[in-house]
């Protein structure tokens, strides 16, 4: 990984409150095993999760996606914890794997309260894949952030 890239501005994919990744109730995310990041405790309303950066959707699951920026940096958005077990129920895909998207473009529609009602955490890890632990600077404030608002900078 080069250090000479311009800082990448990563947007909040869902509306909510930024929480430390270490608070996520999953050891893989809490331990930053696939990369550091910031999690969002989402607003409990039906919502469209958006692309956190401009680039290509290289992975699209019903409950998670990865967008890779033109300079090769991948950001993973995971909608809720253990939501793979829902097998797509309650998630509507608004884009396709392989699509080129602008930051802020809708990718998946879902309802965090439905996930929570099923006994799962709706918290959304936003992961800078394979980034160095000190590469991120959180820019979201302590309150609610809107989907598409700046979440962190990846330098």
């Amino acid at each position, binding site marked *: 990984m080069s250090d000479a890239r311009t800082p990448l501005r990563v947007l909040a994919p869902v509306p909510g409150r930024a929480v430390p990744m270490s608070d996520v109730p999953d050891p893989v995310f809490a331990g930053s095993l696939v990369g550091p990041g910031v999690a969002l405790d989402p607003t409990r309303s039906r919502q469209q999760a958006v692309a956190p950066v401009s680039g290509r959707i290289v*992975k699209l699951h019903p409950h998670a996606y990865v967008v890779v920026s033109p300079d090769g940096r991948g950001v993973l958005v995971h909608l809720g914890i253990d939501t793979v077990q829902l097998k797509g129920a309650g998630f509507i895909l608004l884009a396709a794997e392989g699509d080129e998207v602008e930051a802020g473009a809708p990718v998946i529609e879902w309802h965090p309260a439905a996930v929570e009602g099923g006994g799962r955490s709706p918290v959304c890890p936003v992961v800078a894949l394979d980034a160095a632990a000190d590469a991120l600077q959180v820019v979201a404030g302590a309150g609610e952030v809107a989907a598409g608002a700046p979440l962190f900078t990846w330098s």
Partner: protein
Amino acid sequence: MIEAEKIVAGLGGAGNIVEIEPCATRLRTEVRDASMVDEGALKRAGAIAVMRNGAAVQVIVGPEADTIASDIEELLE
């Protein structure tokens, strides 16, 4: 690139794998005999980490999990 064959071997071989399902970052597997799982071999094969809870074994491989799981399923057929 993580090789499916090495993951299968690390999980104790094809005969030891009851189920394998990809998530966004990991392979969720169920094995017959957890003692046959070789964490060192899985990590040498490229796994970032291995999380175990009895016969439920999660192999953390990153976002290529779905591709690796497809390769493994082909091997198991």
